[in-house]
């Protein structure tokens, strides 16, 4: 029973982390679009390269935020959540 519970906890945490990282698709597509547009803009106006690059990096960083939220949740699920959940399980079993 205990082993099963531990297994379910760890497995679900890993599954959850993996599912959370699906959010990585969004920023990937978004940033790809942004960089493509930036390349077009630089191709059209090579003299404004530095400004376009700066703006693009800013935009990429902001678009990355959702992906980073997912990453943070994945990290929580992998490194923090199992310990907490196992503690809770032990407490309830001990009681």
């Amino acid at each position, binding site marked *: 029973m205990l082993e099963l519970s531990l297994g379910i906890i760890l497995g679900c945490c890993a599954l959850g982390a993996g599912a959370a990282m699906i959010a990585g698709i969004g920023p990937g597509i978004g940033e790809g679009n942004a960089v493509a547009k930036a390349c077009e803009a630089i191709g059209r106006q090579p003299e404004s390269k530095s400004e376009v690059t700066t703006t693009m990096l*800013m935009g990429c*960083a*902001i678009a990355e*935020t959702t992906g*980073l*939220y997912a*990453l*943070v949740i994945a*990290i929580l699920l992998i*490194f923090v959540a199992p310990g907490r959940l196992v503690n809770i399980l032990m407490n309830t079993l001990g009681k």
Partner: protein
Amino acid sequence: MKEKNHSFKIKDILLLLGMILPLAAGIVIKVLTTPASDGIEITGARIFFRLKLPVQDLLITESQVNSWLVMISILFLCLFLTHGLKEKAEKKRQLIAEWIVEKTDDLVQKNMGSYFAGFSPFIGAMLALSAFSSLQSLLGLFPPTSDLNIVAGWALLVFLLISYYKMKCGPLHYLKSFTEPVSFLTPLNVISEIATPISMAFRHYGNVMSGAVVSTLVASALQGLSLLLLRWLPGALAKFPLFQIGLPAVLSIYFDLFSGCLQAFIFAMLTMLYISGSFSPDEYNAYKARKKRTVTQAKGGC
């Protein structure tokens, strides 16, 4: 003259030592506190000291200590750069100092307008602290920016500044801005207001931390690979870190050098944009004029 030159050089060397010694001390602390049997694993900062306080314990951790070391290092760097300033720039270090000052002034002027010209040391401090903290991982130290608390502190400061500048046009005006454009959007407005510092903190922390995680994973994978390949060798040779020699450096250049500097720049940039976006001098002037008028009217009424 000769004597003066001599003392000048000695002071220079002392300042340089003041720059390097904190980092060396950080490495020493790291070596002393790392348990011998520790493999590669992903953990947070080490706790050096714990003090009982209300709400939560006060913890002095590796990230705090490292950021203090970086601050001391930056202080001595400033002293070194401004040591022996002359009216006519002769030394390279004076040129560097002037470059830093002029660049940050330019950046602030361009992104925030002339009303916020006094913010350039703040933005410079933010850039320096963030970049040098991230770059500490090049020395094998724990980068303070990969601790959420450190970055959350900076984001909280930015949030306080944003709120201060929004409230400058009167607290009522600030509260009213939440109900715009429609009153039932108020909860969303509140959430988006709170989300600003949180997203800033998580962005910076997430970037540095993910870099550290990926680096660690790759390093452990390479360790396993080299152990697997060199298993047949006798004695200590079997533990020779064959693949760990050059490959992690490439990742380190991206995650520590490029990403660290980029995140510092983005953090400063977002700070500037948020602060300058929260306040418009024209509106403030109009508010002041209105207030003055009401005051004079009240006086006239009396």
